[in-house]
């Protein structure tokens, strides 16, 4: 704690300006927006989660932890937690693996690196919802080309409208595709930061390219790897809302109903305000935990590579 306060205090210029009201005026917009759209809603959400109110907001009753108890004994909510974890691990694994693989190849390539980068970077700019539409077409049970290929190769009947597993695969593909370029950019930067002398020394000692990758490159990329795991999990927790909304709307049978989609459905469609607020609080605690863990463990390792 002391360390943290020293850190905050030291983060200022040695030579500063003296002005009575100006610094307050400069920070005011940020503080105002933060108070209005972060702190007040967060407090509001926290207090709402302890009340039970009717859908029209006419009456509300203080019920202590009733909403939370309801939540964690609700099989649908527990299922949504499992769905979210499965989904985020799947998205992180697929997009990080492909991103690393493509970045390694691009880093080995001698020619046309600028062109390669251009060709790989742009899906970052595609909205998750649009990525969802593209994959909805590719995986459409009656005329999607990827769906037909899956049918032919595996001999199973592919139908994401009926089968939860297929729907999960569909949203995983749509969400991972867009994220490959994000991961590619970071792995590429990480790879280019590795000193060539290290690789050359290993080569002189007779290490094969594969050996060099596993013994030198990969360990040096671990900070990037950890960082990207956190970022991809956060992405699949929240930003994939657009994908779910356009592609499956949580279905079939709640099999793709991830936590953030459930907050929306219960709050805005079902008008169950207390439960939705409690779910928001759970999500908020979760993201605070992830941020804390990242600062505590990952940031330290990032400094290792400098």
């Amino acid at each position, binding site marked *: 704690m002391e360390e943290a*306060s020293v850190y905050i*205090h030291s*983060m*200022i*210029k*040695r030579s500063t*300006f003296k*002005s009575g009201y*100006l610094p307050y005026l*400069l920070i005011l*917009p*940020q*503080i105002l927006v*933060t108070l*209005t*759209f*972060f*702190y*007040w*809603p*967060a407090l*509001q959400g926290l207090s*709402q989660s302890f009340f039970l109110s009717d859908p029209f907001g006419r009456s509300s009753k203080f019920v202590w932890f009733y909403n939370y108890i309801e939540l964690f004994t609700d099989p649908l909510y527990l299922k949504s937690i499992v769905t979210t974890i499965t989904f985020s691990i799947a998205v992180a694994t697929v997009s990080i693996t*492909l991103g690393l693989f*493509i970045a390694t*190849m691009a880093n*080995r390539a001698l020619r046309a690196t600028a062109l390669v980068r251009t*060709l790989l*970077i*742009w*899906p*970052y*700019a*595609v*909205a*998750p*919802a*649009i990525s969802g*539409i*593209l994959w909805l077409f590719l995986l459409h049970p*009656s*005329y999607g080309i990827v769906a037909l290929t899956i049918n032919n190769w595996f001999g199973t009947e592919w139908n994401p409208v009926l089968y939860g597993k297929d729907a999960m695969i569909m949203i995983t593909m749509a969400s991972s595709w867009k994220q490959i370029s994000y991961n590619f950019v*970071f792995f590429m930067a990480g790879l280019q930061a590795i000193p060539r002398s290290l*690789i*050359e020394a290993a*080569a002189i000692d007779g290490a094969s390219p594969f050996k060099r990758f596993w013994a030198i490159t990969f360990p040096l990329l671990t900070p990037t790897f950890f960082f990207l795991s956190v970022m991809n999990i956060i992405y699949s927790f*929240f*930003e994939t*809302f*657009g994908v779910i909304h*356009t592609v499956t709307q949580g279905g079939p049978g709640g099999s793709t109903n991830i936590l953030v989609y459930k*907050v*929306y459905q219960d*709050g*805005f469609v079902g008008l169950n305000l207390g439960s*939705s607020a409690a779910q928001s609080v759970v999500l*908020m605690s979760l*993201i*605070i935990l*992830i941020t804390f863990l990242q600062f505590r463990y990952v940031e330290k390792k990032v400094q290792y590579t400098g």
Partner: protein
Amino acid sequence: MIEKTPILDIFTYIFLMVGILIVGFPIIYSLIAATLPLEDVSKVPMPLIPGDQFMVNMKEAWTRGNLGNQIFNSFIMATGITVGKITVSMIGAFSIVYFDYRLRVVAFASVFCTLMLPVEVRILPTYEMAANLLGPLQGLWDVLHLNGLVSWFAGHDIEVSLNWSLLDSYTGLTLPLIASATCTFLFRQFFLTVPEELCEAAKMDGASPMTFFRKILFPLSKTNIAALIVIEFVYGYNQYLWPLLITTNPDMTTAVIGLQDLIPQADDLPEWNVALGAAMMVMLPPVLVVLSMQRWFVKGLIEKEK
């Protein structure tokens, strides 16, 4: 390359090509679909030779989806968020780094706490806040029984309800999203690397804080600003959940959300050619921004997340 590995090199290029193909395939395939007439796009499997209906489909998508209006809305939203975020966080960071005042640490800590807290985790209360910005004041009003006071003054019953709604407005689309701890952090980080001598020299020459900001700090920050413009424009343009909640009037909908209406449902004609044509047009602006400002984008992405 360190040693000659001809076979591995060939594989490198083959895998790289496969990687680029995987990344590009959904777009290439959708572009082909957008050129076909309806009877071809619903064929199983869809022909891979582009048709001649591209302009027809695009025109149809443009009018049916009201894309002109929606892309305009998205554009306003993205620009508003970009300009707002960068301005607010830049002057905020200037205040935190270049001034020493009593509440500096408090201001810094309160912004710091909102790091990584996306709008998705606090949707319902933030929505309520936007639906009536004066809501918190109404509570205060009621607690103080000011209605009674006003009525007593006026001599007859007056019911005062404070109401200022941001729903279905550009302010509502942008303002809640412009508070960003990450941008403030990026600027703060950058300002801390600016040599102390610059500020000392400016002070010695009698420059006021704002002159220093305008004449020295702002020009030095240009690369950072360019990088943030790309990232925030893409972020703003691709927003999904927030505009979905805050707009009910179809004229205020953003393009990414409007696309949902063009997706063929089970009973509709499978007009994927129109839907995908629309998707291509909607995703074009952020893709162009990323590609044309690629250099700053890569730098900004990596700096921002550090």
